[in-house]
């Protein structure tokens, strides 16, 4: 017998691409920096993060971390959940290749231990979890392109089967100076700005600004 599934909602969203940051489809920050590292640091400063570990991270983790910060700040009442009730499910196309290339460069002389630890994409999730004290289910997938159907099914499965009560999900992609992060906060409870967590609305969030 098929279980009656509760509705799930996108209660917040964040999008970072082409030197622009949107929070819940509203413009939050426009960067004028020449390169991605400086642009990300601009977001970091605007968010008043004061998190020294940020500077030790690779660029993919920095992108994921600031995107999660934008997503959660002022939107997520994390105290409603136990630390193990919040899941993080991310995907991208180029895994940790941006850092892998940088690490390969260091092998020519002395391999860098601090770069080596970032040569896996799921480290992004680890950094987000450490920053926010999240201990729930997590997974990082590598796809050729963003797959809204998969994301809807995977996250719905986590929430429907009580493996999580809230989920941060989306896309954190970066290679050289090309990047895009789109994160969504999915919860069963709805708030004033919520969208139903459906394939159509995931695509709508993804395609906002046609980027």
């Amino acid at each position, binding site marked *: 017998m098929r279980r009656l599934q509760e509705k799930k909602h996108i209660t917040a969203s964040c999008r970072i691409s082409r030197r622009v940051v949107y929070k819940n489809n509203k413009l939050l920050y426009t960067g004028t920096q020449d390169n991605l590292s400086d642009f990300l640091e601009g977001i970091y400063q605007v968010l008043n993060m004061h998190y*020294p570990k940020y*500077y030790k991270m690779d660029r993919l983790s920095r992108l994921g971390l600031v995107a999660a910060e934008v997503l959660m700040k002022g939107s997520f009442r994390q105290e409603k959940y136990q630390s193990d009730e919040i899941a993080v499910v991310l995907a991208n196309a180029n895994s940790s290749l941006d850092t892998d290339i940088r690490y390969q460069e260091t092998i020519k002389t002395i391999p860098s231990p*601090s770069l080596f630890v970032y040569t896996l994409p799921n480290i992004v999730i680890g950094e987000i979890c450490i920053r926010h004290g999240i201990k729930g289910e997590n997974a990082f997938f590598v796809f050729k392109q963003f797959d809204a159907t998969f994301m809807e099914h995977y996250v719905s499965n986590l929430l429907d089967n009580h493996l999580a009560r809230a989920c941060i999900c989306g896309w954190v992609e970066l290679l050289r100076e090309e990047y895009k992060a789109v994160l969504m906060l999915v919860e069963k409870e709805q708030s004033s700005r919520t969208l139903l967590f459906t394939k159509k609305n995931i695509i709508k969030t993804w395609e906002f600004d046609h980027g």
Partner: protein
Amino acid sequence: MDKLLLELKKQIIEQLNLKDLKPEDIGDDQPLFVEGIGLDSIDALELIVLLQQEYKIKLSNAEEGPKVFKSVRTMAEYIIAHQDQKQ
């Protein structure tokens, strides 16, 4: 010695991306790990790389690590001792 201490502090900040610190924020005898500057195990590996890259000194015995990397002063003393050995 003072010159080496300052140089080491600058190199540590650069190598470990401690952007929130300036050389004057690091005491000569301040512990580098945990309750001091708060470095971690990956930073320890980066300090080994720093010694190798900048001073051509290989830490041959891993057990020496905690003693060598206790503070900027102990690192400087280790460098001086090994440079003297080379000459």
